[in-house]
């Protein structure tokens, strides 16, 4: 079964073709970062306006790369939520129209399920059950995964998502959006012994996160540096280092706690922040001690992409699920509401 996947939930237009027998045939992505950078964050109206210009050319591109024609495509999967309502609407309507025009089924896919299953696109893929850390600009969640669609939320951020905290800290340091890669770059030059930022909520039981206090602590440190003269490049590097270590440290502690609580040895990490090298290295080192393993997607599938939507859609379409009724996008959509499926298709 050949599935066209379409992702337009935020500021990336992602398109892919996934075949349940032959794997990922082609994928293409257009990132709108350059459009939003001068606003310091994603402007929803501009995101929607760009998706509608880029989606169809990208679809043509992946069809050409995969050397396939419209008649080869058996279904269309698209991100139905969560995300920006206007942006979701573009992808969802285009997908429904293509499916109706081709006479094939369509299916709205949960964006975070796409992220969660993205490591399944790799050759070395995890077996169920596992704990998943979904960590991006919009989400920070720990989820127990027993099968596709069998999810139990173990903990989540009570305020900012980790990626959002990275963006806000970057803004305080005068770095461009999105902040994660810029913070990581400065952190490499930072002195780890100069500042010791608090690890939020690690001394409390449970698996929830909170990053707003860390954000305030960062702002106060920036202001202290300014009050002492000026905010130097080295100050920025040292603050970036302390900030990154605090976030990474918190995530590592909570992941280990989640694995221990659930009695599992496999962690899957996905979402934009999972591309952070320090986080990957720290988790690998920590889990090695616990004789546990961490899996994550290839770097290009950590951030939003069409491949993960095509894959997640393929699993559910192969199990017989499809859209019924009107096109309903869900800007807010708890993952626990997804129905389970038992059989993995390719």
């Amino acid at each position, binding site marked *: 079964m050949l599935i066209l996947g379409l992702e337009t939930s935020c500021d990336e237009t992602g398109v892919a073709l996934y075949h349940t027998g032959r794997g990922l045939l082609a994928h293409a992505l257009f990132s709108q970062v350059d459009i939003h950078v001068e*606003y*310091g964050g994603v402007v929803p109206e501009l995101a929607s306006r760009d998706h509608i210009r880029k989606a169809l050319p990208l679809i043509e591109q992946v069809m050409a790369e995969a050397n396939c024609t419209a008649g080869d495509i058996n279904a269309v999967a698209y991100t139905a939520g969560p995300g920006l309502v206007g942006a979701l609407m573009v992808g969802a309507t*285009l997908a429904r129209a293509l499916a109706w025009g081709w006479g094939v089924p369509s299916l709205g896919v949960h964006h975070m399920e796409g992220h969660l299953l993205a490591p399944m696109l790799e050759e070395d893929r995890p077996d169920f059950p596992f704990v998943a850390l979904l960590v991006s600009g919009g989400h920070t969640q720990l989820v127990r995964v027993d099968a596709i669609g069998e999810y139990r939320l173990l903990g989540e951020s009570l305020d900012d998502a980790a990626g959002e905290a990275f963006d806000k800290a970057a803004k305080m340091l005068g770095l461009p959006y999105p902040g994660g890669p810029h913070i990581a770059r400065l952190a490499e030059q930072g002195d780890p012994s100069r500042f010791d930022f608090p690890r939020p909520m690690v001394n409390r039981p449970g698996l929830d996160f909170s990053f707003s206090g860390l954000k305030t602590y960062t702002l106060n440190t920036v202001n202290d540096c300014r009050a002492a003269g000026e905010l130097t490049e080295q100050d920025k590097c040292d603050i970036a280092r302390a900030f990154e270590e605090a976030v990474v440290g918190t995530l590592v502690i909570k992941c280990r706690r989640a694995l221990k609580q659930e009695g599992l040895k496999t962690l899957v990490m996905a979402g934009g922040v999972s591309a952070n090298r320090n986080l990957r290295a720290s988790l690998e080192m920590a889990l090695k001690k616990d004789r546990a393993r961490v899996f994550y997607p290839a770097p290009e599938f950590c951030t939003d992409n069409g491949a993960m939507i095509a894959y997640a859609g393929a699993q559910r379409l192969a199990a017989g699920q499809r859209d019924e009724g009107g096109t309903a996008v869900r800007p807010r959509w708890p993952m626990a509401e997804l129905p389970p499926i038992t059989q993995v298709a390719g």
Partner: protein
Amino acid sequence: MANLLAIDTSTDACSVALLHQGEISECHEIIPRQHSQRLFGMLAELLPSGRLREQGIDAICYGEGPGSFTGLRVCASAVQGLCFANRLPAVPVSTLEAQAHAALREGLVSSGDTILSTLDAQIGELYWCRFRVDGAELVALDVAAVCKPGAMAAAGQGAMVAVGSGLNHLAALPSELRSRLSHCYADLLPRARDQFPVALAKLARGQVQSAEAVCPVYVRDEISWKKLSEQGKPA
């Protein structure tokens, strides 16, 4: 005569129409913010399947704008998908012009009249464009514009028949302009079937688009979001 499918979701109305062998069938509902949920159901009421080429459809015309941004994108995305899947051309039609054709179809104007076609642009503004009625045809006298009602400056001195939801701002129009409005029909809406006269003429002239070129015409192109430089912060 060509066979056409028309879609308009630029206002609270979700409107689709089929021109097939000279006969028009349509589905037109006032359903604010539910266009995406109803659109494909309404299309399915007019057509047995989405394989439009097999059913003899020659092109898809659509309300390109101005109107609700989200509504325009629902329409344009649907038209992109249907045109691409069926290898059909698209024909863009101004929502203001389709609305003016509604006035003509309903007998509210006659040849020689000038129509001021308006749509409420929200945030205290309106979209507008004037059309002169020339027999069964309309001639656009302006490029569609958006402005605050008090700043509206329609050229000329003659009387006009005003139509559309922009008349919600009637009281705020300049008094000189208001005095030129011989009749006002605020309840008129762009309707998919009223795209057909424009689309048939455009199709005959070869003024068509490929699926990739289908895109809303927002008219209002600046957005209220401030850039970092305007927020007083470093970019």
